[in-house]
C-alpha cells in the first residue's frame, strides 16, 4: 500500500497527527522556546506579557550571584553522591534478587514501592527517621556509640541526609532496569566462563559487568539527568527551605525561588538555560565515554 503522496493524502496525514502535534507544541515546544526567549528578557511585565528590553543581563546577574554558584556546587555534590551510590547499590541488590527464587517478586515490589510513592510522603517519613531526638537513624547510630546527628538542621549533614533519601527513593527503578539487563545475559556465557575456569567474582568481572554495560549507561544517564533536576525532595524534606544555611540549595531550587518568591522571571529562565547546558554537556560526555567503552 505505498501510494505516491498527493496534496490530499498529505493533508489527510497532517490531520491525523494534528492532535498530537498540538499537545506537543503547547506543552513541550512552546515552553522550551518561551523559556529560552525569557532568559533574554531584561525588562519584562509578566502580567501583561510585554517585553520592554532584551539582553544578556539575566546571565550577567546569575553569574555574579554567589547563591547561583552555591546552587551549582550543591547540585554537583548531589549528583556525584547519588548517581554512583545508587548504581552500585541497585546493581548489588539486583544481583542478589536475581539469585533468589523464593519471594523474589515480593522483594521486587518492596524495593519498587519508594519509586511510586509521593515524594512528599517519603520526605515526611524521612523527616521522622532523621529526627534528632526520636529518629531511627540516630537510634541506630546510638548502638555504635555515635552522638545524635542533627540531620535536618546541621548544615554539615543536611546534604548527606538528602543524598541518602534520594538514593533510597531511586533504588527501585534502577533495580528493575538492572534485573532486565541481568535477564538479558544468556546463561550459556556463564556456563562457558565456568568451563573456561572463571569462578564467581571473575564471572562477575568478565561477563556480568561488561555485558551489563548498556544498562549501566542507561541508568547513569537517567540518574544524572534526574539528579540535576532535584527539587521536590529538598522542598519537602526541609519544609520549603533550601536546607539550613542554604546547604541544600540546588539549581532548580534557585530557579524556583527566583520565579515564585522573587518574581525575577528572566533570571529564573536564565538559570534554567544554564542548567540545560550543563546537563547537555554532561550527557554528551557520557555518550562519548559510552561509545568508547560500552560494548553492544
Amino acid at each position: 500500500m505505498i501510494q505516491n503522496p498527493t496534496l490530499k493524502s498529505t493533508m489527510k496525514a497532517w490531520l491525523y497527527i494534528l492532535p498530537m502535534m498540538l499537545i506537543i507544541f503547547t506543552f513541550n515546544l512552546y515552553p522550551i522556546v518561551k523559556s529560552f526567549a525569557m532568559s533574554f528578557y531584561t525588562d519584562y511585565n509578566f502580567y501583561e506579557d510585554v517585553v520592554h528590553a532584551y539582553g544578556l543581563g539575566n546571565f550577567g546577574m546569575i553569574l555574579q550571584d554567589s547563591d547561583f554558584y552555591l546552587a551549582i556546587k550543591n547540585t554537583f555534590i548531589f549528583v556525584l553522591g547519588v548517581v554512583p551510590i545508587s548504581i552500585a547499590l541497585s546493581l548489588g541488590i539486583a544481583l542478589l534478587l536475581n539469585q533468589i527464587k523464593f519471594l523474589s517478586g515480593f522483594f521486587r515490589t518492596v524495593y519498587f514501592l519508594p519509586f511510586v510513592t509521593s515524594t512528599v510522603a517519603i520526605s515526611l517519613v524521612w523527616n521522622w527517621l532523621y529526627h534528632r531526638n526520636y529518629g531511627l537513624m540516630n537510634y541506630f547510630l546510638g548502638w555504635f556509640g555515635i552522638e545524635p546527628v542533627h540531620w535536618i538542621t546541621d548544615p554539615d549533614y543536611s546534604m548527606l541526609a538528602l543524598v541518602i533519601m534520594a538514593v533510597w527513593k531511586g533504588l527501585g527503578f534502577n533495580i528493575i532496569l538492572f534485573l532486565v539487563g541481568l535477564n538479558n545475559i544468556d546463561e550459556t556465557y556463564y556456563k562457558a566462563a565456568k568451563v573456561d575456569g572463571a569462578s564467581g567474582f571473575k564471572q562477575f568481572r568478565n561477563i556480568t559487568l561488561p555485558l551489563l554495560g548498556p544498562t549501566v549507561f542507561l541508568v547513569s544517564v537517567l540518574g544524572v539527568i534526574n539528579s540535576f533536576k532535584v527539587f521536590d525532595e529538598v522542598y519537602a524534606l526541609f519544609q520549603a527551605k533550601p536546607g539550613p544555611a542554604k546547604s541544600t540549595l540546588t539549581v532548580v531550587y534557585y530557579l524556583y525561588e527566583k520565579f515564585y518568591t522573587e518574581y525575577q522571571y528572566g533570571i529564573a529562565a536564565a538559570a534554567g538555560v544554564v542548567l540545560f547546558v550543563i546537563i547537555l554537556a554532561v550527557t554528551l560526555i557520557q555518550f562519548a565515554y559510552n561509545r568508547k567503552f560500552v560494548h553492544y
Partner: protein
Amino acid sequence: MDGHQKELPDGLGSPDRRYIEVNTLQVRFEEVSVSYGDKKVLENINFTFPAHSLVSVLGPSGCGKSTTLMLISGLMSPTEGRIFFGDREVTKLDAVRRKVGMVFQNYALYPHLSVLDNIMFPLKMAKVPKNERRDRALELANLVQIDEHIDKKPKQLSGGQQQRVAIARALAKEPSILLMDEPLSNLDARLRLEMREEIRRIQQETNITTVFVTHDQEEALSLSDQVMVLNDGAIQQMSTPRDLYERPDNLFVARFLGKPAINTLTFDPNGRIRRMMNIPQPYAGQIETVGIRPESIMVTDRPEDALFRGEITHLERIGRDVSAKVRLGSAEMVVSGLPASVEEGQTINLTAVDDELLYFDQTGRSVRWSDVGTAAGSAGA
C-alpha cells in the same frame, strides 16, 4: 600471517610435532544416575571413552545425551555414581576446576571480546602471562584457520568462523578432554560438511579425547571412532560406527540408524524367510521381528528365490538412486538401489543378502548365531 600458514603443512606431516601437546585422558562413568525429582534422566550409566579417541553420543532429543556432556564438563553433578578422568575421580569437582574444553551449541563466544581475546580468555583465567597467552592464542587461531580475523568481534563472523573460534577457545587451556554439544546444528548443510571434516582434522592433529554430542546419525557415523547410542537414559549400544550399523544390539539402534529406515517385519516361524534363510532351530523360536535394510534387498527374476513379492506403490528417482515403496499384502517395505528399469505399479520379486538380515527377540534384543557371517556383510554405511 603468511609465515604461520606456511608452517602448517610441516606440523600436519609429522606426528611428533603437534600444535598442541595435550595430556589427554580417558573418561569413565561408573553407575552414574541423574534424576530430577521423580524423573530419571540417566540410569546406571557405565562407559569408558578411551583416550585420544573421538566418541559421539547419539540419540533422539531428550535421551540424556546433553546431560551426559554436562556431567563430563562438571556443569552438572550426578545424583549417584562416580566420574573419572583417567585414574582421577572428578565427581566432586565443579566445572571451574575440571578444566575440560567445551564447544557450545550456540558457541557462546563472549560478545564484548575480540576473537583473540575470546581465545585468550581461559588463559587469562589461568593467570598465564600476557605474552605467552598471545602466542598460544595465535597458534590456536592458526590451527583452526581463523588467524585473519583475530581482531574482529564474534558477531562480525559467519557461523562457521564462530565455530572455529569456539574450538580454539576450548583448546586454549590445553584441556585433557574436549566436549562438543551439537556443534554443527546451527550451520547450513555445506558448512556442516566442511566443519565436520575440520573437527576431525583438528582432533587428529591434537589427538585429544573428544566427546561429540549429536542427534544426527550421519555426523556420528562419519566422524567418530566410537558411537554411543542413548535412549531413555540408558546406553543402547556403544561400538564402532560400522558395527553399530551392521550389527545393532537391539531394535532401537537398528531403527534409529539408516536412511531410509530399516524395514521391520513380524517373523513367521513357518514363513518363507524361515525356510529360505536356514535359521537354526533354537533361534527360530526366539525371533519375533526381522529387520531388513532397504539397500540389502535385491530384485530377482526367479520367483522361487524370492523372499517377497509385491507391487511398487511409489517410486522415487534421485539421479541414479532409485528407491521404492513396495506393498506386500498388508505390510509395506522400502527398497533402495533398484535398477533404473522398474516402473510404478509393477509387481516385482525381491530377495535379500541372507547375512544382512537382522533378527530380534520379543524384548527387541538382537538374536545372532553366526558372528562371522554378519561382519563380512557388504551393507555399505
